[in-house]
């Protein structure tokens, strides 16, 4: 089933939790809502579920406006961050609850519960109470309860955040596989970029109740639309350097007290056309900086952190710190002077005032 928002807003008193959202989720698509805590992600999810009514705007399921449809008539399955398993019911009754409400026949209920429980690998736990289960088992029960009524939309609210690191990585791939096998349109809320990027087909980055960007993980990482997205996605985070965009001899230059980078022609003219002032933020990801001895910007190594597969080097450039990811072996020590050169194909430029990318074609 397709989901679409048209100018969707939700206000709580004067607080604008969600403001004028437009979004389309395709049939069978796996979409992540990614953003920091309190940015309105869960509010969006609860509006899809029908728990909150939008203040303004419309929600469509396929062609139908569902603003006034009750949650029970929306064919939705939902998994909560807390799992919300009813503590007084055994696992069987928890999973069977949606069927019991629909007054499905006992025998059929039994079969369907067993089937979905076996699929989730919890067929042996049906007579336990939720308090007797581990976190991972509880999550499977919550998923089974969401899936048993064969929903057309699956909503996941931070489903992995209560699991330990090892289990989380396992459930990440398992959830992704399950979603593809079942083909259910899935909207998934998380504050963890790794979860969003690894699992989702498309990621909507949300901040302050607005979509910052809605695109594939690859687009988000390589072509962020604005400063927030660029800074939010990526670990270790992107380097931002305040520079000024200047023109001399028909070529564009990035200049600051500590560096001067001539831009390639195409890049320069694009940035020059889009910018509103000469104040620009240069963004470059740590893995797109090369360390060498001969050419580039002269810096001093502040600290070296080996991460095993890679080495994270922090270098001092004027008042700011530049993070560089390089591959071992790396010989230099703290205090050594090295030269950094930026991969100009990969740099990003943002307008300092509007915070928008200067390299994307205008909408």
């Amino acid at each position, binding site marked *: 089933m397709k989901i679409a928002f048209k100018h969707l807003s939700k206000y709580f008193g004067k607080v604008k939790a969600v403001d004028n959202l437009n979004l389309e989720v395709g049939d069978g698509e796996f979409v992540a809502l990614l953003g920091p805590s309190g940015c309105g992600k869960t509010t969006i999810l*609860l509006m899809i*579920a*029908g*728990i909150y009514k939008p203040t303004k705007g419309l929600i469509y399921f396929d062609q139908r406006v569902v603003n006034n449809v009750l*949650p*029970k008539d929306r064919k*939705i*399955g*939902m998994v*909560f*961050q*807390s799992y*919300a398993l*009813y*503590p*007084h*019911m055994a696992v069987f009754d928890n999973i069977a*609850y*949606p069927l*019991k*409400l*629909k007054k499905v026949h006992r025998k059929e209920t039994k079969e369907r519960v067993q089937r979905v429980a076996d699929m989730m690998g919890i067929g042996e736990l049906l007579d336990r*109470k939720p*308090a*007797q*289960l*581990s*976190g*991972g088992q509880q999550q499977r029960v919550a998923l089974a*309860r969401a899936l048993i*009524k064969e929903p057309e939309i699956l*909503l996941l609210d931070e489903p992995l955040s209560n699991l*330990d690191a090892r*289990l989380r990585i396992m459930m990440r791939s398992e959830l992704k596989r399950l979603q593809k096998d079942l083909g259910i349109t899935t909207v998934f809320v998380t504050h963890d970029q790794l979860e969003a990027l690894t699992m989702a087909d498309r990621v909507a980055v949300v901040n302050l109740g607005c979509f910052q960007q809605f695109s594939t993980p690859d687009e988000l990482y390589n072509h962020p639309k604005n400063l927030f997205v660029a800074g939010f996605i990526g670990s270790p985070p992107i380097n931002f350097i305040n520079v000024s965009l200047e023109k001399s001899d028909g070529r564009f230059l990035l200049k600051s007290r500590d560096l001067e980078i001539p831009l390639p022609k195409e890049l320069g003219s694009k940035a020059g056309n889009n910018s509103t002032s000469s104040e620009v933020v240069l963004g470059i990801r740590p893995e797109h900086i090369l360390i060498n001895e001969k050419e580039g910007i002269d810096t001093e190594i502040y600290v070296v952190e080996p991460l095993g597969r890679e080495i994270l080097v922090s270098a001092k450039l004027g008042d700011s710190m530049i993070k560089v990811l390089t591959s071992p072996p790396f010989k230099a020590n703290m205090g050594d002077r090295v030269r950094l050169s930026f991969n100009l194909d990969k740099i990003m430029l943002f307008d300092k005032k509007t915070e928008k990318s200067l390299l994307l074609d205008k909408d």
Partner: protein
Amino acid sequence: MKKKGQTGEGELPLPISSKAKNRTFSRLQGRLAPYAFLAPALIVVTLFFFIPLVMVFILSFTNLDMTNFGILEWWRPANWSLDNYVKIFTNRFFPKILGNTLIYVALTLAFFNVGMALVIALITTHINRQAGFAFRALWLLPRITPVVVYIMMWKALSGPAPMGIINNFLGVLGIGRGEYLLNTHPWVFVILVNGFIGASFGMILFSSAIEAIPKDYTTASKVDGATTWQTIRYVILPMIKWPLLFVTTYQTLSLLTSFEQIMLLTDGGPRLYQTEVWALTAYHRALTSYFGNTQWGYGSAWAVALVVIGIIMAIIYLRVFKFGELVEEPKIDRL
């Protein structure tokens, strides 16, 4: 920093005997301190609760009354017998009084102290928070009004035609005949009067218990396809089982022993024993009499029998609600 146990040893060398004495004293102090703290409560409970309880229990086996007071040595086992209990159960009005008590407790409990309390709690937790709070505060008024004033208001409400407010409404509807309603429908008023006060207790406990249920459970239930009623039935009610048990048990016991509102309202009337309940009988037998002959022993027997009934009821409740399961500890979380 000094280590524990070194206090006074390093810098203040004391003679051995005084040190030993000090130690004995502090040990004694440690032993007595808890009792010292308990003493005020223990004294009050013993004097005003435990001793009277034992006395009532003993008195229930004697025929102590106004006429033999000071003569009868009620504390001697030789003067004890079961006569009072035989007298209770062979009393001509015993079935009437027992029936009254059952009707009074069952109806007040079901319709008000638990039923109405639950309804108010559910409604006021599902509407706007402030409105819910205001309504609950309003409902507390009868409880904080002095009971005599409260009963006077009910008497005024139920008064005959031109004065009684209820009769005025009934008159408009054409169903009232303007009588003194306390005489025509005493039971309705006995239950209403007690219920309006009684419901506030459960209302407060239930609404705080409902508000303590994490929002996720009710949201989950709605998404799972439940109507509001189904959510209440399958999620909210099971989750407030503990306060439900407590209120039911506690209110049964307090209704069984309560009589002051009935005494002020109908005093067991208007017709002979029409609204006389067990606790009121105990009071009447022990402390009031038209001829000044108050039968303390006989009254005590009524009271003791009521306590026994109360204990039996409490045990039945614990069984019905499966108290053991309610306090079962969860198994330790395992990965």
